[in-house]
């Protein structure tokens, strides 16, 4: 099958006053149509930057410094603004972290839904409203006709995220990039929203890139996982393989730190140390100062991704 998305050696930098910061150091991954992938890692690993760089919407001093983003056979990273605009919200939709901040407070839900359709498709306002109502039904918002006339503050957090999901469905995209879609929500609603997202992705055959630091969520939703550390992908593989048999010491640490795997009475495990700032990444393997298995070579040579079993790992332990 042809790949839906292929990210090749993508490099993203931030032009800061203090110098250029490399936030993505040549990452590679690909997605088949309808496939769901989790992008996991600690805070600051570059997950959001990776997600946003696909539609070239990196926040301000950031820019794509190299590599390719091949979507449906075309390198969209080289697209001009108007070409990229026709992809955004049309073939690739995004779901943001905090639904309280994502919707414009002074526009009605209806406006914020129909405008997306009108920006991409030749249709009347009435037709757009029809589709908006359809999509609100898909995310189980009751009485969508009246809800369309309301403003974001008239909805709860969970409802707002449903609306954001409905917006992402409007144009029947091929790919949804969801950046921590449940972190800002109440724990009780988190599962509900994830189930909804999963159900819709399967029903509408949409690909999904799920960005999260929660391996637990990823394990129930996605078919494969890419683990990020300090702007690099350090391990890739099938979700089941990675959860049951993690190769990279960092991935092992992440799984050990899951609340689900920890035994009652024991202290919750934490990977020792913190992730380095991107401007002071240690030589060799960026993870080596925190690694319990480190060898001499780890501080000297940076390991590259190599096939191990069915997955890929960047670690000298498997050389």
């Amino acid at each position, binding site marked *: 099958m042809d790949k839906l998305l292929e990210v090749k050696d993508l490099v993203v930098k931030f032009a800061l006053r203090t110098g250029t910061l490399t936030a993505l150091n040549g990452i590679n991954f690909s997605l088949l149509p309808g496939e769901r992938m989790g992008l996991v890692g600690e805070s600051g690993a570059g997950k959001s930057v990776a997600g946003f760089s696909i539609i070239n919407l990196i926040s301000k001093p950031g820019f794509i410094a190299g590599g390719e983003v091949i979507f449906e056979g075309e390198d969209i990273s080289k697209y001009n603004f108007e070409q990229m605009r026709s992809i955004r919200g*049309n073939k690739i*939709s995004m779901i943001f972290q905090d639904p309280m901040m994502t919707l*414009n*407070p*002074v*526009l009605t839900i209806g406006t914020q839904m129909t405008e997306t359709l009108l920006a991409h498709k030749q249709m009347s306002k009435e037709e757009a409203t029809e589709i908006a109502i359809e999509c609100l039904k898909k995310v189980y918002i009751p009485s969508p006709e009246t809800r369309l006339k309301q403003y974001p503050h008239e909805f709860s957090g969970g409802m707002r995220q449903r609306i954001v999901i409905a917006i992402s469905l409007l144009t029947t995209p091929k790919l949804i990039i969801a950046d921590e879609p449940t972190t800002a929500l109440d724990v009780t609603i988190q599962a509900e929203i994830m189930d909804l997202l999963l159900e819709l992705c399967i029903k509408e055959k949409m690909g999904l890139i799920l960005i999260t630091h929660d391996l637990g969520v990823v394990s129930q939703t996605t078919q494969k996982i890419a683990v990020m550390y300090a702007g690099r992908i350090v391990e890739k593989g099938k979700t089941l393989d990675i959860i049951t048999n993690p190769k990279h010491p960092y991935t092992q640490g992440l799984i050990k730190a899951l609340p689900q795997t920890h035994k009652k009475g024991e202290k919750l495990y934490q990977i020792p140390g913190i992730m380095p700032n991107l401007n002071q990444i240690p030589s060799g393997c960026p993870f080596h100062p925190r690694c319990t298995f480190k060898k001499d070579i780890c501080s000297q040579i940076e390991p590259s991704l190599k096939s191990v079993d069915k997955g890929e790992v960047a670690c000298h332990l498997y050389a």
Partner: protein
Amino acid sequence: MFAFIVRRFLQAVFVMLVISLIGFSIQHQIGDPVRDLVGISVSKKEREALREKLGLNDPFFIQYGRFLKKALHGDLGRSFFYKKPAVDVILSKAPATLELVFVTSILVIVFSIPLGIYCAIFPKKFLSRLIMGASVVGVSIPVFLTAIMLIYIFSVKLGVMPSFGRGELVHIGGYWYSGLFTWDGLKHLVMPSIALTSIMLPLFVRLIRAEMMEVLESEYIRFAWAKGLKPKRIWFVHAFKNTLLPVITVGGVQLGTLIAFTILTESVFQWQGLGFLFVEAVERADTTLLVSYLIFVGFVFVLINTLVDIIYGLVNPMVRITGKK
């Protein structure tokens, strides 16, 4: 929304009470109604009798009550200099100032919105830097200096513009003599309103730019880009509508600044409006007129701020529904 309007109205009444109390206190302390009535050529004994008759020896709050009651009937006392009710004097001067403020406001609105938006969207462009630089110069040159420079260049040197007064007026009705309907009247309006605009426009350009830039950084704007909307829609609908809210609020407050600057502008251009009247009243120690001016300006200020809040409520759905902010 109705509850919101009622509450705003009650607040306005309260503020007006405070203003009237302050105004009355000033009059009570430094004014001398007896002098205002009979001048200084009357004996001390007769004056004392008159004081008693006028109730000027009554306790403060009884006098204040009387003052308030009269004020509600539109009577703020008589101007010592004009020998007319102070309210009449003020109403006859108000149109001049209102017309000046009106023309200035239009100039400010028409120019500040596009300039502010442009500078917010393209902060790095040369034109934006030029506008921002000019605005710093604009706010830092005192308004009377701008006014004098305008007079020097266009009236004294080039002789193309009138340097003082309102020019030919048309009687509209009541106290209203307007300069907006004659070529001469409009010509006289040009320089005073430019002087006033020179100080208000930079304030608003900077305000709109700052608010808009903040809005452009927000998550919902980023989401709007992610939805693939056209830039014009993001700037003028998504961002500008949110910029408007704080600008409306601050705009109401800036009215105070505008009033202060009308006093200066009117003095330089001998513009027969309220600001000019105020300076005159101070010079002539016309306390009643002075206090009437304070109360009138306070009233206009409160009125406009209340209207601004209600407009804010109409723009902001959050207030519209809940009546809170």
